[in-house]
């Protein structure tokens, strides 16, 4: 019996080893937590990230022109906003005190996979935590996911698992926005009821109802409005504002009241659903 077993193992040991390693691979693939928990298994680890960082330092010069343009445009917009704030009551801007901003550079990014991730040069030492909002001068980019000492990876908006609470700027109706997994500039906004007045070109912004994204950050513009037969809700095709192909400088936004907010939402769930 034992002899038979030893003979079996000796005959098939390569196949058994193959099965064993393949099971490890499958476990890593299917276990979502492994990616986040072990920083050395994703591109936020010191070696990988500093390699990307060094290489980015070389290629950075190639699109310097474009990044400058974006930053100049943002400066212009901020100047205008600052002007508005000065005119309005001081209460208007106090809300921003709830958010902490960290600026950082993107060192690796992809747009052609189904689950795109972004590697960013800012980590725990800069005050980055998982679940911080990532925005670029042009608008919403993603959410930080795994964080190491000096780097982090973020779930891109171009990720089939990403869901954003977004609203129509002019009337405040909100729905949920997901990427179409096809083109890097197309997303779909759902859950907008048919009685709402919308037009092509309307601006979509972040709703601020989730605890991650501050309210009012640009997401994109309405490109096409589809009414599925028999449905009371529109499927709205949105052209994203951010050009994910040339992502360079981003801001990480930390909502300081998030823990409190999450606590409240948990309480609400317990009260109403049990």
């Amino acid at each position, binding site marked *: 019996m034992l002899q038979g077993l030893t003979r079996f193992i000796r005959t098939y040991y*390569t196949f058994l080893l193959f099965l064993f390693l393949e099971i490890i*691979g*499958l476990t*890593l*693939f299917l276990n979502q937590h492994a*990616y986040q928990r072990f920083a050395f298994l*994703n591109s936020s*680890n010191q070696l990988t990230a500093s390699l990307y960082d060094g290489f980015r330092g070389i290629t950075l010069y190639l699109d310097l022109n474009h990044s400058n343009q974006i930053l100049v445009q943002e400066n212009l917009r901020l100047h205008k906003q600052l002007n508005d704030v000065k005119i309005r009551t001081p209460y208007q801007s106090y809300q921003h005190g709830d958010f902490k901003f960290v600026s950082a550079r993107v060192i690796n990014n992809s747009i*052609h996979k*189904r689950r795109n991730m972004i590697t960013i040069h800012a980590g725990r030492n800069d005050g980055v935590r998982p679940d911080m909002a990532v925005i670029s001068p042009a608008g919403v980019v993603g959410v930080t996911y795994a964080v190491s000492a000096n780097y982090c990876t973020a779930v891109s908006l171009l990720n089939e698992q990403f869901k954003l609470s977004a609203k129509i700027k002019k009337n405040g109706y909100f729905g949920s926005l997901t990427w179409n997994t096809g083109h890097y500039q197309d997303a779909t906004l759902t859950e907008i009821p048919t009685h709402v007045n919308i037009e092509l070109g309307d601006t979509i912004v972040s709703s601020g109802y989730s605890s991650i994204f501050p309210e009012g950050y640009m997401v994109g513009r309405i490109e096409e409005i589809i009414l599925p037969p028999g449905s009371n809700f529109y499927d709205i095709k949105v052209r994203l504002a951010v050009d994910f192909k040339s992502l360079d400088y981003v801001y990480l936004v930390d909502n300081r009241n998030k823990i409190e907010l999450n606590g409240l939402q948990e309480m609400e769930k317990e009260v109403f659903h049990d």
Partner: protein
Amino acid sequence: MACRKWKRRSSMIKSIIRYFIAPVLLILLQVLVLNHVHLFNRFTPQFYLLIIILLPFETPRWTMLFYGFFLGLTIDVFTDSLGLHTISTLFAAYIRHFILQVLAPRDGYEPGMLPRAKTFGFPWFIKFAFALTLLHHLVLYIFEVFKFSGIGTIIIYTIVGTLFTTLTLVISQLFIFRK
């Protein structure tokens, strides 16, 4: 005497370059340059398979498996796709032995030979690289498009991706002039 010592040292340097430095350079080429290539906005040449392809014939099979596992894992760490390349590259490393058996010349392989186009000719190399890449890409795309689209998509992606990757692998052989 001195000559033999020198010979041994030079062959050691050769194998250090072949098994440690060259793979690292190939991985860097893959993650820093080739991963930014997207044919039809989708297909990236998985050129790192060359590392698996060029290992000597007499490599023990368990070594092949560990080699494939850690190579795939490294690519996964760089591309943030934990498990995907590990599964497919390990499979390629396992199946390589059987492909080589099918493609073996009548009098078998001699020890010390490397599976290169320079040694066995381009038709042989193309067959070998194509078969290995096809099986690798099949597993890769099964898991990547897993549950979202049908078998048709997987097959089309596999075929186009395989042709593209094989092309880059064959081109690489044009750069090896020395035997």
